């Protein structure tokens, strides 16, 4: 087993990192140039430089909002993870429960969250409503993936467990959950991004109701005030948050599976 990558592989990897950066730099340069040459005012389209300066100037305000949004996202994600995996386990243990409730989980998923958010804001206190939105959007992929994972146990291994008289609990803890782990982690990876979306949607809905201080609220508020650079700056922070969440979850996925699951293995064998 040689761990050293060939020159070809190395060049491939360099290109995969370098090319997107080149594209980004080019895009930003053209953007900056067009704004300057055409002399476009910042309330129509701010140049990248202006956006960056706004980000620095408004950092105190924006970072506080970022924190609020991240907290909501994180809480929503945790609830979605617990709810999704928990429900999947319950469904797996009691078929009757699955038959009774699964259709409603699907309905909750297919109804656009933007349409549900205002309603939630009427019945729930604001923080709870925002959380509920993040949860509704994020929990379904966890539930669907975990359910799939719990059902895709190797049949021979299941036979082996029954041969040795394993209890239901042993089958769940020692066989079904480990088998489902790659699926669960896949669901969580999707849920991370979705809980951010849920939080943002709820904040915007709540913001129009007159309260809130998250990043999405900042975007809406800046929009009303025609503070376009701040809108862009807040949007940039949201994207960055999304990227960080995705890579954090990918890292957790890798750390949990690297020793045994095909998806986390390198190309070398």
């Amino acid at each position: 087993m040689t761990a050293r990558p060939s020159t070809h592989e190395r060049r491939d990897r360099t290109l995969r990192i370098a090319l997107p950066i080149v594209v980004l730099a080019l895009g930003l340069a053209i953007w900056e140039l067009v704004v300057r040459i055409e002399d476009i005012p910042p309330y129509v389209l701010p140049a990248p430089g202006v956006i960056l300066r706004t980000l620095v100037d408004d950092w105190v305000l924006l970072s506080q909002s970022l924190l609020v949004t991240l907290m909501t996202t994180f809480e929503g994600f945790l609830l979605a993870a617990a709810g999704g995996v928990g429900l999947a386990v319950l469904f797996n243990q009691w078929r009757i429960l699955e038959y009774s409730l699964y259709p409603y989980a699907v309905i909750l998923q297919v109804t656009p969250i933007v349409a549900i958010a205002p309603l939630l804001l009427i019945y729930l206190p604001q923080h709870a409503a925002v959380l509920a939105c993040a949860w509704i959007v994020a929990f379904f992929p966890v539930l669907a993936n975990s359910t799939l994972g719990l059902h895709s146990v190797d049949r021979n291994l299941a036979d082996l467990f029954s041969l040795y008289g394993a209890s239901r609990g042993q089958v769940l803890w020692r066989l079904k959950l480990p088998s489902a782990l790659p699926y669960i982690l896949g669901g969580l990876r999707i849920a991370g991004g979705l809980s951010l979306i849920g939080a943002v949607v709820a904040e915007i809905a709540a913001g129009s109701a007159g309260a809130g201080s998250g990043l999405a609220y900042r975007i809406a508020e800046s929009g009303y005030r025609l503070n376009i650079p701040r809108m862009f700056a807040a949007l940039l922070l949201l994207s960055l948050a999304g990227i960080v969440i995705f890579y954090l979850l990918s890292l957790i996925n890798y750390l949990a599976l690297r020793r045994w699951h095909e998806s986390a293995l390198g190309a070398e064998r």
Partner: protein
Amino acid sequence: MQSAPLVALRGVGKEFPSGTRALAGLDLEVRPGEFVALLGPSGCGKSTALRIIAGLSEPTEGAVQWSSATAPRQSASRIGFVFQEPTLMPWASVFNNVSLPIELKGAPEINAAERVRAVLDRVGLSVFRDAYPRELSGGMRMRVSIARALVTEPQLLLMDEPFAALDEITRFKLNDDLLRMWQALRTTVIFVTHSVFESVYLSSRVVVMAARPGRVFTELAVNAPYPRDRNFRTSPEYAAFCRRASEVLAQAMAAGGEP
């Protein structure tokens, strides 16, 4: 004088819900310490028979009788089962895979670590106790699977074409190791295979099965002495047994009707 059978199938039939008749009127007696091979074409129900003996599948007719020393249900730990694939838990180390049967039993009187160490020693994998299944070769994975089946010191070891997926060199090596373990442990083995050569090399009795529906066609005693080794594999005696088994198998296949 022949000892009482350890396990006996009496008129066992199995019809799947789909209507397929996998077995009909299967009679088979296995005495303690025997090495019995079930040989037959694919679809003759030999794996189904094995699953019925293991209690993983219920016969629709007939019965499985155990000698009084072993009642079938509490005998779970007295049966070891080796599947066609190694069927290891990919998330667990070799050690944890092998100790699984003991842990599922929750038998505190057994020193699990000691047992696992001994059985890993026996299959020659002590060095790999902390490795994960994916880090092992196909042959080594099968050894882990055998170690796991042996860790409860079963009276009856059921093997379902365990070496079918391995290359011939690995297969010969595992055949030899299996025979050595069988002799050392004095256990009883029922070995399902579709290889004439393997069945003759390993077993003291080859039970040839016919298909549609699965049943015992005939039996063939391989009364060559153990220990058997490379010399036996190249002996005229072995060749003669193989020829005989091949002929019987051909007859069995004719009787079962080509699909």
